[in-house]
């Protein structure tokens, strides 16, 4: 019994760590999300510390990864023996290498504010800083973050020039390093702007009064992919990850979506095929119930995220299913995935019935778990289907939920008999379906631990492999 409880707790935590970002959602405020998430973290950290660390190896979101690292380093003395500490350290180092640098700098700052300065923290910070590919770029782009981190851990300066740039800016008249020198010159000459990273150059451009249009056009080659998207410049759609691409498509007005239908559909399909990888075409007959009700519009900070996940899942499932054996069912009744919009109620129950009508091998439901036309019908349909019509489990049903429910400390589920997994990026769908099988309550904690250990091993192997390549 306690084993089952433990397994449930862990899955709950994984769902939270995948979906929750502490930001406002459609139905709950940022504060509620934040408090709820803090509680879940503390609960799992205290009760299942090894599992808590192992979650770093899963496809959890950056916010939670940073939170886990912070919590682990803050409570180093609870880790147990030196063996456990070493294991945690390796996981932390591997995860930090994957996090975007601005998040890591923010994490270091949080550690500093909390007064965490143990030997392990210092070692981890120094190792991460040492592994940064271009310290001069970091010094320009994340100046205060890098300064704070170096001060906090008494780190050695990457090189004398960067050191002077950070801590003694008046000492040198010019720098050998082109990035640092561009930063120095940017104060006086406009042409130097375009040798700097976009975010840094933006401030200088404003000071020089460069027209925005002109600035954007000339800085374009220095922009990252996301920055190009954000400033609405034509980005290269063929290399974008699936969910990002879906978000981009949904941000376009209908007219443009129709006009660029071929291009957008091709890009979405290509991204889905990439995400499906070796599993493409291996799932047999698949039916999907996809939620495009009003609540899938998300919130001001997570605009249309649930809908984008559904759209991404639609294309990914199309790639995973055997050719021609895929049936998508949107809750609004629409059949043009490119023109979906968040509107209307959520009649999940009837849509699930329609999906079961097609006799699928797998049924995937992508929804925030609120079912309101009529409420609770989806759960009832699934329960009766499982107990009366399909007790031999010919059809496997999985519910993927992109929204963290702050009140329930988990993602909302439709019925106890249907495994649910949190989802943030459509790309993770295959891995999440694997985790969801544990949520059915038929496998115990031991299997779950074994699964986690396997994932940790893969993760660490991947990290060192990457390190060797880099």
């Amino acid at each position: 019994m306690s084993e089952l409880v433990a397994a449930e707790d862990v899955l709950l935590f994984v769902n939270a760590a995948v979906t929750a970002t502490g930001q406002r959602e459609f139905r709950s405020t940022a504060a509620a999300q934040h408090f709820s998430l803090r509680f879940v973290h503390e609960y799992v950290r205290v009760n299942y510390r090894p599992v808590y660390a192992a979650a770093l190896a899963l496809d959890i979101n950056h916010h939670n990864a940073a939170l886990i690292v912070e919590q682990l380093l803050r409570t180093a003395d609870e880790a147990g023996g030196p063996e456990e500490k070493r294991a945690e350290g390796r996981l932390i180092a591997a995860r930090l290498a994957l996090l975007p640098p601005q998040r890591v700098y923010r994490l270091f700052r949080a550690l500093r504010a909390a007064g965490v300065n143990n030997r392990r923290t210092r070692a981890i910070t120094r190792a991460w800083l040492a592994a940064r590919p271009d310290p001069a770029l970091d010094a320009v782009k994340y100046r205060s973050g890098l300064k704070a981190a170096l001060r906090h851990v008494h780190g050695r300066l990457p090189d004398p020039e960067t050191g002077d740039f950070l801590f003694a800016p008046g000492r040198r008249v010019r720098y050998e390093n082109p990035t640092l020198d561009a930063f120095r010159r940017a104060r006086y000459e406009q042409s130097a702007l375009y040798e700097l990273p976009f975010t840094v150059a933006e401030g200088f451009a404003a000071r020089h009064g460069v027209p925005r249009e002109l600035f954007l056009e000339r800085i374009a080659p220095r922009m990252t992919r996301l920055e190009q998207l954000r400033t609405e410049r034509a980005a290269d759609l063929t290399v974008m990850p699936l969910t990002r691409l879906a978000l981009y498509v949904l941000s376009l007005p209908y007219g443009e979506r129709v006009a660029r239908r071929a291009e957008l559909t091709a890009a979405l399909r290509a991204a889905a095929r990439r995400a499906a990888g070796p599993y493409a075409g291996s799932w047999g007959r698949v039916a999907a119930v996809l939620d495009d009700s009003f609540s899938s519009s998300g919130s001001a900070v997570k605009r249309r995220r649930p809908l984008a996940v559904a759209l991404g899942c639609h294309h990914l499932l199309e790639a995973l299913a055997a050719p021609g054996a895929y049936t998508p069912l949107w809750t609004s009744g629409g059949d043009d995935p490119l023109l979906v919009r968040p509107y209307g109620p959520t009649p999940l129950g009837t849509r699930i019935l329609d999906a079961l009508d097609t006799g699928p091998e797998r049924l995937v439901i992508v929804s925030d778990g609120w079912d309101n036309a009529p409420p609770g019908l989806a759960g009832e349909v699934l329960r009766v289907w499982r107990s009366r019509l399909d007790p031999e489990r010919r059809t496997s049903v999985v519910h993927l939920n992109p929204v963290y429910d702050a009140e329930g400390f988990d993602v909302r589920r439709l019925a106890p008999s249907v495994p649910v997994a949190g989802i943030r990026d459509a790309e993770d769908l295959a891995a999440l379906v694997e985790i969801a099988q544990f949520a059915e309550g038929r496998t115990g904690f031991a299997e779950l631990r074994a699964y986690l250990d396997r994932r940790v091993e893969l993760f660490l192997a991947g990290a060192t492999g990457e390190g060797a390549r880099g």
Partner: protein
Amino acid sequence: MSRIDLSGLDVRPAQVWGGVRLVPLVRAEPVPGLRLHREVYGGFGAVDLPDRTTYLSYVPHGFVADWTGTGSGAESAAYGTRLGGEVTAADSMPVRRLHRMAKRRRDKDGRAERRLRFLPLHLALEGYLALHFGGPSVVWDEWSREAVRHGLSPRSEAAYAGWSVPGLAEALRIFELHPGQCGMLLYVADALAAAFVVPHPEDYRLLHPTLVEDLYGELVHQYAYYGAPVPEFTARIRDGAGGVRSLADLRAAAREQERAWAAAHDGLMARDLLETSYAFERVQRMGPFDLYRFLPPFLRGGAEQHIGELITDRKGRTVYLKTFRLSENQIRKGHLLRRLADCDWHLGRTAEALGTSYAEVVRRIRSAGLDPLLNAHVVTERLREDQES
């Protein structure tokens, strides 16, 4: 016409948020020939009353009923809708003369257009406030000179704006509109708080956000404040032995759930609104449509009492409806005024009709806030006589 006829509007399953339950009403076909728009006013509104007084008010928005028929060209759905008011100086507030509660719009040449502007719920409230506005018609000794001369003026009632009703704004924000939705019944702590119906789904979509700026009764505010979250009527499929054997059976059972909900709602939750007989008063004719205000019978004994306004088509079906739920105090006041008027404002006869004593009637008048209307001296005298006898 004595009842509200909601035929043509289907009930869909409710959506619940905390103590607020929202029941969508859906039309299979929009009503042809009538559209309702929102007109946004900036600043204060001034209304000229027939007795040459003016009252100043802040009016968030007005409604424009347009029965020119859709697709008639220049007058489109968005006519009259605009954000903000006219440009104003920073130190002054614009005052807009509204002339009358319901007013035909006129074009530049002064011809009456086929459009009517009215302020939501003001018709209904005016009806309630003007209840026996004239005061006593026979000069009984008990009434003060003021009452005989000027009637019950001025009278006022308090109401709460939607955004000050706890949880309502959030519930309206996350509500998921149904396709074809033309109305909504709003319950707070499972008491019917308001009903709102418009002719066209597009109008509803535009007017849905205005619900948070509307007036709600004291009762609604209190229920929202002290009430607990209401339960959701979740679907329940009975699957006992031999119940569900195939997918078709399951589908039939699911359909049955939806039907059961609609029947239960109409018979149980909205009964008082739909089955009470109201006193209707026609305010305005608009082609095939009639604009009414209605008053409840002011019966005491627990039944809900709503005042409101509605537009009906030729067959008497509701095209537009907006209601305001009276609080217990307001019902009592209405009841008392009705009885007083029935008995020609004679206190003794009213006491008989109500089956109570003279003293009790005086107490009721005072507790209804009509104390200044009584001639204190005469009333005290009469009370003393009663006691001595």
